[in-house]
C-alpha cells in the first residue's frame, strides 16, 4: 500500500554530480530553478539534519509558503526532507484547496553519478498521514495513470470542447 501512495520522478542531468549537488544545496543557486515559472525566495536554508529551508514562491501578487526540514544530508548522494505547506509565519497549515492533502510529504532525492551525467530520482510519500490523506494522495498520484487514466482523458475532451 505504501508504494501506491508514492510519487516519483527520474531525470538525468548533463552535469557532474558535484555540480548538481551544488545546484540543490546552495540556496542562491537553488532559488534560481526551484518552482515552475515562479519567483522563488529562500528565506532560510540550514543544510543539516533538523535544519529548515523556508521557501516562498511568488507569482503575480500571491505567495506560496512551505517549510522543508532536512532529515538526511549525505553529500553528494542523498538529500531527505519533510515538506509542509505553511502560512507566511512558517506555521504548518493544511491546504486550503484540498483539506485532505497530506500535511507532510517525505521527499527523498538521490544523486547517482554516471560519468559527466547525474541521475536524479525524487520521491514523495505522505508522512504520519490519516487514511483520508493517504487516499487523497494515492488517488492523485498512482491512480491517475491507472484507473483514473480513462476518466482524465474524458475530462480533457470535455474541457477542450467547452473551451473550443
Amino acid at each position, binding site marked *: 500500500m505504501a508504494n501506491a501512495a508514492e510519487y516519483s*520522478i527520474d*531525470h538525468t*542531468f*548533463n*552535469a557532474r554530480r558535484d*555540480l*548538481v549537488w*551544488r*545546484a540543490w544545496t546552495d540556496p542562491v*543557486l537553488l532559488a*534560481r*530553478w*526551484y*518552482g*515552475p*515559472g*515562479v519567483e522563488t525566495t529562500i528565506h532560510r536554508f540550514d543544510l543539516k539534519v533538523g535544519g529548515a529551508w523556508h521557501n516562498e*514562491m511568488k*507569482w*503575480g501578487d*500571491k505567495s*506560496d509558503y512551505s517549510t522543508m526540514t532536512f532529515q538526511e544530508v549525505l553529500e553528494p548522494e542523498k538529500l531527505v526532507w519533510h515538506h509542509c*505547506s505553511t502560512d507566511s509565519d512558517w506555521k504548518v497549515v493544511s*491546504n*486550503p*484547496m*484540498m*483539506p*485532505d492533502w497530506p500535511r507532510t510529504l517525505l521527499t527523498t532525492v538521490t544523486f547517482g553519478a554516471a560519468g559527466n551525467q547525474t541521475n*536524479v530520482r*525524487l520521491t514523495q510519500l505522505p508522512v504520519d498521514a490519516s487514511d483520508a490523506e493517504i487516499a*487523497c494522495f494515492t*488517488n*492523485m498520484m498512482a491512480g*491517475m495513470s491507472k484507473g*483514473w487514466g*480513462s*476518466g*482524465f482523458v*474524458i*475530462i*480533457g*475532451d*470535455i*474541457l477542450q*470542447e*467547452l473551451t473550443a
Partner: protein
Amino acid sequence: MELTDYTTTPPDLNAVFAALADPTRRAILSRLTIGEASVNDLAAPFAISQPAVSKHIKVLERAGLVTRDIDRQRRPARLDATNMEAALNWLADFRAFWSKSFDQLDDFLDDLQTKDSDHG
C-alpha cells in the same frame, strides 16, 4: 504547490475528485458534453434506474460539476466546467512542479558549466 490563481472561493476539490472517481458519473459527464439532458435521457444508456441516476447527478451537483434548471419541468442537467478545470489545474500543477523545475535546472546547469569552463 498550489500555483493556480483562484480569485473566488476555492472549490472543494475533495468533492470534485470523489465525484469523478465513479465511472458512471464520468460517463454522465461525457454524455453532457454534447448538450443538456434530463434524468430520463441520461438513464437510457445505463443499466441502472432513474433514481440511481438522480443520485449520481446530485453528487455531481454538490461537487459543482453539473447544474440543473429549477424552473423547467424536466430539470435538465448541464455541465459546469469551472470546478473541473480547477481540479485539473491542481493536478497539472502538482505533477508539473518537478518536471518544470528540472527543465529549469537543466538550463541553469548549462550556464554554470559554461561559466566554470570560462574561468578555467
